[in-house]
């Protein structure tokens, strides 16, 4: 059986998993920043880097095979 976790519960769960025991109001504060910063982190994956290969965003372009679903059939 799996337990579904809401997005709002995720930060607290991650902190708990990391072993951090913080008061609820501080977890809420950390979570707010996490949510705000998450968009900025996602933007980093859109940067075309110069170390070879296609930018990561290409892997998930609509209509193309996604590595998360395994390799496309040849």
């Amino acid at each position, binding site marked *: 059986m799996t337990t579904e976790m809401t997005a709002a519960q995720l930060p607290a769960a991650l902190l708990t998993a*990391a072993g951090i025991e913080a008061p609820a109001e501080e977890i809420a504060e950390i979570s707010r920043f996490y949510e705000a*910063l998450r968009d900025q982190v996602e933007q980093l994956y859109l940067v075309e880097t110069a170390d070879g290969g296609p930018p990561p965003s290409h892997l998930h372009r609509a209509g193309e095979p996604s590595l998360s679903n395994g390799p496309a059939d040849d």
Partner: protein
Amino acid sequence: MTEQIPQTIAAAASAIRAGDLTSAGLTSALLDRIGQLDPDLGAFVTVSRERATEAAARADAELSAGRDRGLLHGIPLAVKDIISTREMPTFGNSRVTDQGWGNGTDAPAVRRLRSAGAVVIGKTTTNEFASGLGDPSKGFPEPRNPWDSERTPAGSSSGSGIAVAAGMALGALGTDTGGSVRAPAAAVGISGLKPSHGRVPKSGVIPLGYSQDTVGPMARSAMDCALLLEVLAGADASDPSASDVRVPRYAQLLTGSVEGTRVGVPARYFFDSPELDPQYRDAVIAAIDLLGDHGAVVVDTEVPLARESRDASTLLWICDGYAYHRRNLLTRWSDYGRPTRTLLAQAAFYSAADYVQAQRVQNRFRSELARIFADIDVLIVPSALGVAERFSDMKVERRRLGPNFLAQWSLAGNPVIAIPCGFGEGGLPCSLQVVGPAFGEAAVLRVADAYQRLTSFHLRRPPRPSAATDKS
């Protein structure tokens, strides 16, 4: 008693050699000034009155005996309290730090200053572990901006900035991971240099972001920063990241000329952000125009990935800091100040892939800057969005999420100096940054020094009681 205290290291060095000043007299006057001003400004965690007095007397005796260690000989300096010093404890502004941290030894940067004859007068306040904000509940001095005590002196090298601005030290060491030398330098109206990553050894310094940490000089002028840097720079066996790139005699390269120097001005992001205070922006543009009037070639430049490089820098140092502090965060959460623990704990949310992607952005941004610096000598951008904020107006969200002109150069590892360029709202200092190519400190310092020979903003001092006065 009224003491005549030179404003700059260079002026003090000249006065000492001319016989107009002794290190003992200078040190005594600065210690008196600390006693007078610091209770209200909160710049110092520890003042080493006795040892500093002894060191100054030794410096004078050496000079009298004909031994001159150079222009720092007998000059009183302050050291940020995350840098180890043999005679004073290092707290890092934290109740978490082991009392024996540093083991009573000098960090290489401090050792080099002492070998050059400098007198260490005290340890200066910092944000806890050079991150976050202060937490008044922890019992350390609360640093205040000497121009307006209701405003922040910025950080994290807050005390070093205050000490120089208020004339309690002629120079100081700071550290800069994402702007911690330049932000306070800008907020209090002094000069602060973040050297290239690896230019100055950072062993003996409590780490924050391994991949971006630097030790840098803070002083009234670019010339003084040059004098300090040429003593501080160079490889050291204790720091594998310290570079063996040759160390020039920086001060000798400051010609006062910008004739033919190509100055890149990136309008996008750095000058067109709606959050940038117009008066602050105008002060920076006026400085660029002045350099243009004196022979600099001003070039419109594009710096790509300004926003992304800032975000990558922040992600990397938060994760680096979390790695260093994780064990203590798990067991001593409440011993950390709240701003520090809630900041560093965010790293628990980032994945290894996020960290690697930030490093990939770092590589790309370095390549972009190398391409840009093939065509220009320096970039000039504002140091901040506006003058130092009032404590009552400070918003952590704005600081973390809004535009920022400091972190890009930390991510790339390039040298950059913040220098005063005028005064804005409330009579508070405005500041610009001169950015150079990797290990191009000479170009950065030369442009900053040339600007300071044309202006006097860097010599303006905050108002203070009349008992302590300066000679120019």
